[in-house]
């Protein structure tokens, strides 16, 4: 669906998405990414941050991140990562990033106007638990059940956010997580730790609701490219993987209509 108003002239109908995760800024890292980020208004319509923005999740580190992203001239949409939770103050980290102007999503969505169209981002940190046929079950000790339940609730939050986007008629929908929805983008990581790097429940949520792109981080030794079983392209933008301040993706805004997937009861009703 197109918003009212004429298409800006001389501008292709694409959204230019910049994305990076796992920048892991410590208190000594102020200004590290700022020079590259200053170029964003020339090359991107929005910046996605795929979590692990800090080293230990402290407020002081979050303030360093805020300094890198404040007043960039493009909208910034972020999810937190496991490192941003380490100090047990994720709400404080979120507040600092929001004060710097970022949309920080956890089971929420942001709809941004780009070239007369709507671009939707659904975000949640997600959790680990493993991939199809090699995942933990919600059974046994309370600790094990809590672990698996955390993964399920993370995927449910992402599903809820994707469901919100469906109501907006977005030209492009992006799923933003920290943990990986697919094993493809983990190639390069030791196979033994795959269950700690992501969860297939995230991919199930993405495929149930439909999306044009899924962006994640967390797998520092992984690879950039992957795809869900439903055909949604997945990109691992962990900074060590992309080896740049951010990666850039261009998606057509009028190339195809939004696919109206009916959400499954599993994600739609809880």
């Amino acid at each position: 669906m197109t918003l009212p108003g004429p298409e800006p002239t001389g501008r292709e109908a694409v959204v230019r998405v910049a994305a990076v995760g796992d920048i892991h800024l410590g208190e000594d890292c102020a200004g590290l990414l700022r020079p590259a980020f200053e170029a964003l208004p020339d090359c991107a319509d929005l910046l996605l941050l795929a979590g692990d923005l800090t080293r230990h999740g402290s407020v002081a580190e979050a303030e360093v991140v805020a300094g890198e992203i404040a007043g960039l001239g493009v909208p910034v949409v972020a999810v937190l990562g496991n490192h941003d939770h380490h100090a047990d103050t994720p709400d404080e980290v979120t507040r600092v990033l929001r004060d710097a102007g970022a949309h920080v999503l956890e089971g929420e969505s942001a709809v941004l106007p780009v070239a007369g169209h709507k671009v939707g981002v659904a975000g949640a940190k997600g959790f680990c638990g493993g991939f199809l046929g090699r995942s933990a079950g919600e059974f046994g000790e309370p600790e094990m059940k809590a672990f698996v339940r955390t993964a399920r609730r993370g995927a449910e939050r992402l599903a809820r956010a994707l469901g919100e986007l469906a109501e907006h008629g977005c030209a492009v929908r992006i799923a933003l997580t920290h943990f990986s929805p697919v094993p493809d983008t983990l190639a390069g990581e030791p196979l033994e730790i795959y269950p700690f790097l992501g969860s297939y429940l995230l991919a199930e949520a993405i495929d149930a609701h439909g999306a044009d792109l899924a962006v994640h981080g967390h797998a520092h030794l992984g690879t950039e490219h992957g795809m869900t079983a439903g055909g949604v392209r997945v990109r691992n933008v962990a900074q060590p993987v992309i080896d740049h301040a951010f990666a850039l993706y261009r998606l057509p805004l009028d190339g195809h209509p939004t696919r109206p997937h009916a959400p499954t009861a599993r994600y739609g009703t809880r």
Partner: protein
Amino acid sequence: MTERPEPYEDRAPGPGPYEDEYRIALLRERLAGDGPAELGVRVERRGGVVLLTGTVPTSTRREEILDLARATLTGLTVRTDVAVAGRDAPDHGEELS
């Protein structure tokens, strides 16, 4: 006195190859732990040497990691091939049509 299975009884006291394995595991744990919180570095044994590979955000971080590796693995040869992640804006993007 604790009863120990054969392989341990036969071993002479002092550092042996199996203790090196535990020290390498300890290094992995320290790297991922509270201080460095570094998950982008892989520690592998290659013959007689320990090899550190991966990518870290800054050169300071790389020096800290090397210092920690040398301190944890005293007596072992540590070789490193740890890169600092690029911080430049990319010169091209990917078309997803």
